[in-house]
């Protein structure tokens, strides 16, 4: 699975993030106060204006701090009843209709049908739920203001903060119930949709090997189903094995053995997984033997992976920390997804050979435990046993890094290397190779003029298998976070804007959030074709992204305007929540567990970091409206 923006662990992330948040919140609060004072002074004069502003600010703080949970609950219940009255259940109906016709659009014969189905249901749910949240939140308050039903609420002893929070909570409850229903329906849709079996016809099986006790082992293929078939082998005792194809295999049971064998093939296995990965930190060893942050670029336009040269000392090195003996008592389950780049075809019947080595970062002992045949775009699993008795080579080496200030640094220092450590016939994984929980895994390409490519998440330790069902529902938690953010923005915008305008503003916030990566790159001038004004010129003149614009006044003016616009884009990209961060579809589709730390905890706290100021802003906007006074 590709993880372009890995999240740091909570302990690593929280202190700096909390400080940043407090700083930004403080700056915004002061800015809002100053602005409020300015507006008030202009309206009422210096003394009265300042007094009014400070009084409003103080009463606002009181409003937020002294909210009554009972009143919030009542207003939330009001919001729920309003949503039911607006027939939100139709959204669920629409979702079911989409699923019914989804078969027209989903290719069950795809090489990864589970991934396709999972991506589809998560995406479809995201769009529907966010649309629901948008319409519910953006139109609710303005509709109440227009119909004057808001008067029945504000004339009661209700704080504006309770109104805002009540709406947010109420719509969240409605959205959560719908999301829960959709997730259950989606689960059955996916599992039924890709579920299949195969027939095995005895007449299509051929003898494979010598007969044992008069029974002949057989091999052949299953019948085709969903655009594929599997190779199978049945031994003399009738025990069958079905080979993996399209990312899954089947259990096979021999129901009759002898002259006319018959078999029953079960459902697909291995399609729905939730691997718990432990990722390491990646660095590379160049062909000169020096440690570097990135490997070679073989001409790929995507810089996610870099490459190591085969037949040299070059290696991709992952450093794992906090490894516990109790977690891996049987051995180390290593899984990897290495890309292969050939500079010449060579023997195409076989994959390019590589080796996996384990190294102790403290002593420098390195043991080459496995030579493997690579296969790109397919995860390769290697179990390194606790007691390593079979290995290709053992040595003691230092890693070498060049630094501008300290020159060449060796780790461990070369004079401290003890070569006797390598002169043994057996190694213990934890006693010899893991040092204070740290271990290095080295991947090398063994064939000259061929290359292996890797990104940091391309090698992981398969620590455990979590429950797919729980992981599936964790995927929906990401959608829930997005929904809550949209509701918060919608309700806040609706406190001072009319319904349609609030909707547009919320849509703008969503678009900005979904494309925050792109906006950040645009603001850093890292996108081909220049900024917004330069892009307008290119569109009108039908020029492509690569050619330079003609130098002149127009180009200069556009580029200067772009500098200003880029600053604005940077601000927008950073004040809007990055919605893509809350999207766990890939995790579920690729079969990786969405680990609590950091993938649930950090995004949840990030969402909260946006929710709090948005809520506070909503409270103040509503408070300052006449209808609420």
């Amino acid at each position, binding site marked *: 699975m590709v993880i372009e923006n890995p999240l740091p662990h909570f302990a690593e992330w929280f202190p700096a993030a909390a400080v940043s948040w407090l700083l930004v919140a403080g700056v915004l609060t002061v800015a809002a106060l100053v602005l409020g004072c300015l507006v008030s002074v202009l309206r009422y004069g210096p003394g009265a204006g300042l007094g009014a502003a400070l009084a409003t600010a103080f009463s606002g703080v009181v409003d937020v701090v002294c909210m009554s949970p009972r009143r919030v609950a009542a207003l939330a219940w009001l919001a729920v009843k309003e949503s039911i009255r607006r027939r939100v259940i139709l959204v669920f109906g629409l979702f079911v209709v989409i699923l019914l016709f989804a078969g027209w659009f989903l290719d069950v014969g795809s090489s990864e049908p589970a991934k396709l189905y999972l991506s589809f249901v998560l995406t479809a749910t995201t769009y529907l739920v966010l649309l629901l949240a948008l319409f519910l939140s953006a139109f609710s308050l303005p509709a109440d203001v227009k119909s004057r039903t808001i008067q029945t609420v504000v004339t009661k002893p209700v704080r504006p903060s309770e109104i805002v929070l009540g709406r947010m909570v109420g719509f969240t409850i409605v959205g959560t119930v719908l999301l829960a229903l959709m997730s259950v329906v989606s689960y059955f849709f996916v599992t039924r949709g890709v579920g299949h079996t195969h027939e095995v016809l005895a007449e299509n099986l051929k003898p494979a090997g010598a007969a044992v006790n008069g029974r002949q082992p057989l091999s052949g293929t299953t019948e085709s189903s969903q655009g594929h078939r599997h190779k199978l082998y049945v031994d003399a005792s009738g025990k069958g094995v079905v080979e993996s194809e399209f990312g899954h295999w089947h259990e096979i049971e021999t129901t009759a053995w002898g002259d006319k064998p018959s078999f029953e093939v079960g459902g697909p296995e291995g399609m729905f997984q939730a691997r718990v990965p432990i990722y390491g930190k990646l660095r590379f060893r160049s062909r000169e033997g020096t440690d570097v942050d990135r490997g070679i670029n073989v001409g790929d336009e*995507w810089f996610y992976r870099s490459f190591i040269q085969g037949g040299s000392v070059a290696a991709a090195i992952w450093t794992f920390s906090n490894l516990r003996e109790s977690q891996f008592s049987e051995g180390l389950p290593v899984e990897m997804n290495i890309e292969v780049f050939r500079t010449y075809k060579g023997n195409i019947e076989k994959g*390019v050979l590589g080796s996996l080595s384990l190294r102790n970062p403290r002593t420098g002992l390195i043991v080459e435990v496995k030579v493997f045949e690579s296969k790109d775009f397919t995860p390769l699993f290697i179990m390194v046993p606790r007691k390593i008795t079979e290995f290709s080579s053992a040595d003691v080496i230092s890693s070498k890094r060049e630094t501008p200030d300290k020159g060449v640094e060796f780790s461990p220092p070369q004079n401290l290397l003890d070569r006797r450590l390598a002169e043994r016939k057996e190694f213990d994984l934890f006693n010899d190779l893991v040092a204070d929980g740290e271990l290095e895994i080295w991947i090398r390409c063994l064939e000259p003029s061929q290359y292996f490519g890797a990104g940091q998440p391309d090698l992981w330790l398969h620590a455990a298998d979590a429950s797919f069902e729980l992981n599936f529902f964790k995927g929906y938690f990401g959608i829930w976070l997005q929904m809550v953010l949209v509701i918060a923005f919608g309700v806040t915008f609706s406190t001072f804007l009319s319904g349609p305008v609030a909707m547009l503003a919320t849509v703008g916030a969503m678009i900005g959030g979904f494309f925050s990566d792109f906006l950040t790159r645009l603001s850093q001038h890292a996108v081909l074709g220049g900024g917004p004004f330069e892009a307008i010129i290119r569109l009108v003149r039908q020029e492509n992204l690569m050619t330079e614009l003609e130098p002149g006044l127009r180009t200069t003016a556009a580029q200067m305007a772009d500098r200003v616009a880029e600053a604005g884009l940077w601000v927008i990209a950073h004040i809007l929540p990055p919605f893509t961060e809350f999207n766990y579809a890939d995790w579920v589709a690729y079969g990786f567990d969405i680990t609590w730390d950091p993938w649930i905890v950090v995004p949840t706290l990030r969402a909260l970091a946006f929710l709090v100021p948005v809520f506070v802003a909503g409270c103040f906007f509503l408070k300052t409206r006449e209808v609420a006074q």
Partner: protein
Amino acid sequence: MSPQHAFARKIFYLIGLVLLVAVLSWLGQPTVGEGSAEGKEGAASGLGLPNLAQLRVRYKLSEAQLGEIDPAGSTIKLATLGLRGVAANILWEKANNYKMKKDWTNLSATLQQITRLEPHFISVWRFQAWNLSYNVSAEFDDYRERYRWVIRGIDFLREGIRRNEREPMLVWDVGWYITHKIGTADEVKQFRRLFKEDDETFQRWEDYRPAADRDNWLVGKDWFWRSEKLVDQGADLRKTTPVLFFSHRPMSQMNYSEAIEKDGIFGEKAKESWKKAGDEWFEFGARAIPATEKDRYIHLNDAEQFDREAADRVAKLEAFEPGLREKIRKERYEKLPAAKRKAYETPPEKRTRDDWEKAQEVAEQLIVTHDQLARQISGPNRQTAIKLAREAAEFEKKSEENRLYRQIVNFEFWRERARYEQTPEAIFAREYAYKGAEALANADLIKAREMYEQCFAKWRQLFDRKDFAQLKNDDSLGQEIVGIIYKYRQVLEKSDKPFPKDFVLNDILELHEKNWRAREGK
């Protein structure tokens, strides 16, 4: 606003609506009936103008006439609420992104959505099929996966054909991918084997030919034939060069013949195959190929006939006054300045650049055209001479034009190739070369030497035939034989035997070894 104003405004709107509906209903009314005269002539409107439905029928533009109707596609088009172009652009951008990030599952799914939105935009099908079969397949290291993606691209094209049944280029593309992507890839051996064994794919294509007949060249040839049939029925070739388009079917037979010999199949089967290739090449030469000018056609076989017609007329023309052409040339030469004559007389290897320019000018000035010759003839034969000159010039021009078209498809080379490859000498020569290479790979030097020597003997027999007197000048064949001689040399070196001075194909080495070495970098 007063009630009268509001009422007047409503009446005004009503009249506008009625007028618009009337125009729309006239435009959109269905055809009178397919078989009726009005239906065919489009006079149902009563004004002599066809309505939209009739135009649709006349130009075969309705959905049902373009191809199979896809309910999913229609649904997705409706769902975009008029933003079909925007949606297609977004999907295309996403597809590029998935391809960059090597997310093949999502790439395939996105391409399917794009084609659902724009099923009749032929370039989408062609471009993305190419993307799948050529670009995406190359990303995989395992040749089996590469083959799967080649087939996926072909399946993508076949889907396009279902939606656009009268589009010959999509059909032609299928033929191309099956013949060339499978038959000329680096992993050609593996691809051809996988293709023959691919029961799944043939079942999906509803092609039930036995496995032995599943040669990719022959299967692709059938697709080229289908595309030709569509063009013969009036389908548009768009910007494709017709001579290239029609050449691929017979070329597939040529390539098949070559392929089976590379696979070690010779004898009668190879002979029949080359004969069939020659016959089909002749049929291709007899086909009327549209020329660049409208309503003009070329038959590639005709060049020799034009040459004969021209030569015949020239002979008759020169018979009126034998030697007149030479006399005119001599007179012109004597009138030339001395410097130019000197440049012209300088041997080519000693000419300077200025000499070359002058010599070229002299050569052009010394050309006596048939018309110039005819006008020098006096007496009663003059008019006949002028007529003969004009006709000879026309035939020469036709021949030249014909040969230009021939060059596009290397017509003469392949015609000659089919002719000599079907001879027993050539078939045996290739068989011995194959066995020699096999023996060399198995380190059986004695057998390898024997086979190679028999191979060379057969080529000698062929070159010595009067009907193949010019064959040894064929650069392609010559270099191929030099390559085999090179392997023979290796066998002799390994056997400690010298290369014979009286080697049976010394003339071939003289003619072609230098070029071969330059090409091979040896």
